[in-house]
């Protein structure tokens, strides 16, 4: 049985028509010792088909260690949301490169986190933070590595 209701699916499909660039969701999980990996995977499985601009890649936290390192994944379930951009290599061929803004989700994206997930997909696709010009000017002053952790609960 699906987690999303038909009307939610329709609403999301509609919302995702605003997607400009393709996004890739890289999901990390493992079968053993991860109670909430299953449900997280199921939510992502239901979201990804709602737009041809969304690609879902599923990796194993225990096996795919190079990717765990590349995306600096700390725990599971986890996923990164990156934008896919086309770029020309030196031979003039078109390559797909990932633009990783460092956005990660840990745990089941339900409740408020579900809305954060949809918002993150839209913002990563557009590359637009929708922040006010004054705020952008402030943020441009951040020159040191800065790690934000936002803690939430399901409700």
């Amino acid at each position, binding site marked *: 049985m699906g987690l999303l209701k038909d009307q939610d699916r329709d609403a999301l499909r509609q919302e995702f028509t605003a997607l400009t660039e393709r996004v890739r969701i890289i999901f990390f999980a493992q079968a053993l010792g991860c109670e909430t990996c299953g449900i997280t995977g199921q939510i992502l499985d239901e979201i990804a088909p709602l737009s041809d601009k969304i690609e879902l890649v599923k990796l194993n936290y225990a096996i795919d260690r190079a990717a765990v390192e590349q995306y600096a994944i700390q725990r599971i379930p986890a996923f990164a949301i990156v934008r896919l951009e086309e770029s020309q290599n030196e031979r003039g061929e078109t390559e797909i490169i990932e633009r990783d803004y460092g956005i*990660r989700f840990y745990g089941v994206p339900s409740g408020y986190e579900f809305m954060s997930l949809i918002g993150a997909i839209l913002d990563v696709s557009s590359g637009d933070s929708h922040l006010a010009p004054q705020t952008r000017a402030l*943020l*441009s002053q951040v020159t040191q590595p*800065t*790690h934000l952790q936002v*803690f939430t609960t399901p409700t």
Partner: protein
Amino acid sequence: MAIENPNIRADMIEVSEFPELGQRYQVYGVPLTVANEKVRFEGGAPEPYFIPQLLNQLGIASPPTEILDANAT
């Protein structure tokens, strides 16, 4: 914020699944934002207050008051 500046990365964490993090960061209410392990910002707040406050506490940017005022309108 992470989209705006490549120096910034952001984790969204469902803390009830990671009680050890709840303990480590003493998460008693949500949302709680922790920046660089040291700066804490509890609760939700509008962007014109939240982001300047957070950056200010990090000692990264101290906004002139007119920026705060302009944001507040």
